[in-house]
């Protein structure tokens, strides 16, 4: 969810709740106010009636503006001086309470004027509460709508102007690549938080960059420096192997040291190769026909393909020429085909090669499980049956990145498929 959508939701909900509470309170206040106003009106009506009676006016002549309905009854004796109020609904149409019914408030009192006692009731109808509520609701909705529109426009404005440095920062970090980009440079902003954010990110990326560089240099130095001692070890072992008078135990030890050194040496070779690719030490390019490249590899690997009785299915429809570094393209196709042969089923598998101007794909049958995509091109992911899978694939990935190609991996019904978008 976007930052502004989220804040929008919160402010909208708050606004609605506040409006509702406000309306309720206003409604209540108005009702109470109206009620007391009515009481006052009724009391003033009482005064007028008493005054009129004192002046001897006939009750019939009382104008109706002091009350909607006045009843005056002569009684024998005044029993109370208290005012009593009564509220009831009066239907304008039927007897039953409905939407049109009015609330009527009635004041009953007794008074004695000129030695006569009267029981008097005065009533006044009230503008109905419900109706007030409806009015208020209407007003609220209108205001709510207006405020929503205003808020929306405000956020548009905020996101366009106020938040623009933030979004710019975001875009910059998103496209930042530790291997490619130089240090991040952000646009100036006068908002303190964004200044701080930019500064922090700048410091962080600089730190990351320098750590990365140090680590890279370290790996490079280690692998380069390892070459000489490795050479010495491997030639020494080779000479040791020339000895004839070994016990079986010694013979085995020498053999194992030799094999371990071989592994170390191959690993080191890959590391050096990778750092050389990263440092862009393969600049020269040739125009290479990928079909030739594939055919040459198939021929070179003929022995291994035959040994596993692998059927090769080729789907090429056109020559595909690319300007590539010949060393890297050779390593790339070598690794791709070696993987497809090495991890193929024991005997009688298939390798399908599809090449067109957009892509190159290779599918091979295999007993292996789907490779976890998270670790697919990680350098040293160990598969359960072979330690070299990770290095081979990460080398493939590295060269593909170098060529600015894309690679996708899928696995279906025991067939592993790598598709390279050229």
């Amino acid at each position, binding site marked *: 969810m976007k930052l502004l959508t989220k804040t929008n939701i919160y402010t909208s909900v708050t606004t609605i709740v506040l409006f509702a509470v406000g309306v309720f309170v206003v409604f209540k206040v108005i009702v109470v106010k109206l009620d007391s106003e009515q009481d006052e009106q009724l009391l003033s009506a009482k005064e007028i009636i008493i005054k009129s009676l004192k002046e001897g006016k006939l009750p019939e002549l009382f104008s109706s503006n002091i009350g909607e309905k006045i009843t005056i009854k002569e009684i024998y004796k005044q029993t109370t001086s208290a005012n009593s109020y009564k509220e009831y609904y009066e239907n304008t149409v039927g007897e039953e309470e409905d939407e049109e019914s009015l609330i009527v408030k009635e004041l009953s009192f007794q008074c004695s004027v000129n030695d006569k006692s009267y029981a008097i009731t005065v009533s006044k109808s009230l503008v109905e509460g419900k109706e007030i509520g409806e009015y208020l609701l209407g007003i609220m909705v209108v205001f709510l709508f207006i405020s929503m529109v205003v808020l929306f426009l405000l956020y548009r404005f905020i996101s366009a102007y106020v938040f623009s440095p933030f979004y710019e920062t975001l875009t910059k970090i998103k496209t930042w690549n530790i291997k490619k980009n130089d240090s991040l440079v952000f646009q100036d902003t006068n908002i303190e938080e964004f200044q701080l954010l930019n500064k922090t990110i700048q410091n962080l990326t600089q730190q990351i960059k320098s750590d990365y560089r140090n680590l890279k240099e370290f790996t490079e130095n280690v692998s*380069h420096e390892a*070459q*000489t001692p*490795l*050479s*010495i*070890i*491997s*030639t*020494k072992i*080779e*000479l040791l*192997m*020339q000895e004839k008078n070994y016990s079986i135990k010694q*013979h*085995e030890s*020498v*053999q194992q040291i*030799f*094999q371990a050194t*071989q592994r170390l*040496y*191959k690993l080191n*070779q890959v590391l*050096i*190769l990778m750092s*050389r690719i990263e440092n862009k*030490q*393969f600049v*020269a390019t040739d125009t290479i026909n990928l079909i030739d490249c594939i055919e040459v590899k198939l021929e*070179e*690997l003929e*022995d*291994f393909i035959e*040994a*596993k009785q692998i059927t090769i299915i080729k789907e090429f429809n056109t020559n595909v020429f690319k300007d590539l570094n010949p*060393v890297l393209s050779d*390593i790339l196709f*070598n690794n791709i085909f*070696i993987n497809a*042969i*090495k991890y193929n089923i024991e005997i009688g598998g298939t390798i399908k090669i599809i090449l067109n101007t957009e892509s190159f794909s290779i599918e091979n049958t295999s007993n292996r499980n789907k490779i976890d995509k998270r670790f697919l091109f990680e350098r040293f992911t160990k598969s359960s049956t072979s330690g*070299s899978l990770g290095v081979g694939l990460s080398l493939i990935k590295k060269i593909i990145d170098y060529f600015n190609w894309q690679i996708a991996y899928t696995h279906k019904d025991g067939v592993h498929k790598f598709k390279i978008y050229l």
Partner: protein
Amino acid sequence: MRILIIEDEKPLREDIIYYLSENGHKCDFASSVKSGLEKLSENKYSCALVDIGLPDGSGIEIIEYIKDKNPEMGVIIITAANSLEDKLTGLKIGADDYLTKPFHLSELSARIYSVIRRRNFGGRNTLVFDGLEIDTKEKKVLANGIHLVFTKKEYDILLYLASNPTHLITKEALAENIWGDKAEMATTFDFVYSQIKNLKKKLNEAGLTNFIKVVYGLGYKFKD
């Protein structure tokens, strides 16, 4: 053959000298550009092994000197992987061959033989052992005078073994020599084994039973 080894890493240099001497070469050494150039001006060599990264300069200087003063001399670059862009660059600057460290001594020996053979126009192109003759120019093998027919791989293996006649050749070195960077395939050693078996069979049939011994677990030997 007289060979000059220009390499500053003493243990490595000593091993190379030891191994090549056992193969009948006469070896001199130098550990810097300066002493290398001195040696080259004093003596005549068939082949020079040149390390590119030397303490007082680049081996390229030495190669340029050789190409200028003694162009018929063979040059093999032995270098760390990062010193030159690739083999092509090495060959462009005038070397006959290029080996990255670490390498198998047997591979080095085979390359030296191959360079010397190529350089030795019209000279000795035939390797002769007891009853076995390998004509490297015609790629022909004669066993007790009978012409044997080998596949290309069998011939390459035979030549490789014959270039290291008294040494044990590891199956790894042999596999790498034949398949290069494809040698990591799991079935490689079986291939080497079956090729050797065919090779031995053909030699045996021609009456040569002394050649190619299997050293269990390690590799092969051309002869005892």
